[in-house]
């Protein structure tokens, strides 16, 4: 990407991440500018936390889950939260996930893995 494209993508990312914690926005910016893998992981963590539905108590669990945590069974994701999260990651990082690839995401590690593999290529 040339510098103009990078800045355009950062601008779009900032718009998409309105309402997210500052560290998530910063992580997106750092990844898009420098390709920093640690920043990408922090971005995924922020996106997972944002899309994780509030439980029956109405309170969100803010602690970062283990990598083996299952999105649906452990983190409470429903199919709507899954498509919303996938759509955002797609838009943000140009992943172009197919429906089958999205359906194959079972755990936090699965999400991190596919994002690491695809974002670097995008």
């Amino acid at each position, binding site marked *: 990407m040339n510098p103009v494209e990078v800045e355009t993508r950062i601008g779009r990312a900032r*718009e*998409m991440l*309105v*309402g*997210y914690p500052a560290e998530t926005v910063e992580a997106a910016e750092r990844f898009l500018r420098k390709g920093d893998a640690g920043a990408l992981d922090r971005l995924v963590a922020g996106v997972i936390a944002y899309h994780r*539905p*509030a439980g029956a108590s109405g309170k969100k669990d803010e602690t970062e889950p283990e990598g083996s945590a299952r999105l649906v069974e452990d983190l409470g994701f429903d199919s*709507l939260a899954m*498509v*919303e999260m996938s*759509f955002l990651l*797609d838009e943000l990082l140009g992943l*172009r996930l197919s429906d089958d690839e999205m359906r194959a995401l079972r755990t936090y590690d699965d999400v991190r893995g596919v994002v690491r593999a695809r974002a670097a290529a995008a």
Partner: protein
Amino acid sequence: MRTRRVLITGLGLITPIGNDRAAVTRSVRALKHGLRRVEWFAECPVKLAGIPEEFELEGFNHAAWRWSARYAIGRETVRSMPPNSVYGYCATEQALADAGLTREALGDGRTGFFGASAGSPRMMAHHVNETAAARGTKVHPWAVMHSVAGTLNFNLAAHYGIRGAVTGFVSACAASGHALGYAFDEIALGRQDRMIVVGAEEPTWEMLVPFSGLRALSRQTEPEKASRPFDVERDGFVGGGGAAAIVLEAEDAAERRGAKEVYAELAGWGQAADGHSVAQSEPEGRGVEAAMRRALADAGMNAGDLNYVSAHATGTVVGDRAEAKALRRVLGESGVAVSGMKALTGHTLSMAGALSVAITSLAVREGFVPGQAHLREADPECAGLNLPRETRDGAVRAAMCNCSGFGGSNVALVLRKA
């Protein structure tokens, strides 16, 4: 067979003339309009709209939207909403609090929800364009829910856990009038004990500017000259939006729970279509006349029993004239006061019937007769109506609210002091 009286026990108002009943009452008493200058496009001749204050619902990221600090809307609630449903949510919260009802009480299966909205042209255009740009390979998860006409009832009925009758009405500017009429029937016929009726519309350029294609909008830039029902110089309507929420309850159900507020009885309603034109009123107003006569018969009343009529009166040349002719035939020489609230609020489209009934409920409850704002010289073709120039104190024992929509649908609703 009807067996029960239907009462109005809660109101919620997010409008161009105020965001609660006290503010709306003040505006109607002072005939203070809520039309604002808009600069959507420099070249665009539409320069005025009725837009509620305290709301900023621009752009397509819900996290950047702002609403009145009086309401909390969680991310998981707002994410599937277009602007009209945010207004609708706040009006409903207000109406439920006003009625003394909590969310928990609404899932009893005896409570229903009827919505009236034209949907969200803004969200629809955005999602359709994005989908086209991606050649159908990528569609926003909420594209449909953000856009279509039923989104108001989808969002709110689900949020409130309603298990009774839920549907939406799409008869354009008669839609919330129809919603109220059919909600009245649900209760009167014993099918439901309580109905929440919400009319909501978003005053965006995508919603309003298209009406200029029919030459239906005023080209004036001064509010006092722009929205002037029955005036000889009227030249079209000014668009508006927001939401009006009304709680209807069977008298017995309201008594059982000790409802704290009763604004008025909804005593009956009637409808009749013009059978004339897709877009224009039938020039003699025969459809709206039939709707009014049916509403009065439904309520078991005569025109002489009325103290006030809230006319549809959008400020278009043809529409106001047709309604005036119908009103003259129905009201005769009775001298019943008539006024059109769209001078103050603009024409809020699908929301208009509910807004008219809500304002008239306040008039019945508090004892004032709303005056006709922005009337300099009554059109001779609208002559013979008693159009008071000011809002005056005075008992309103019974009143009628008219609304009419595209295709010639007409609805009239009769309110009576409870």
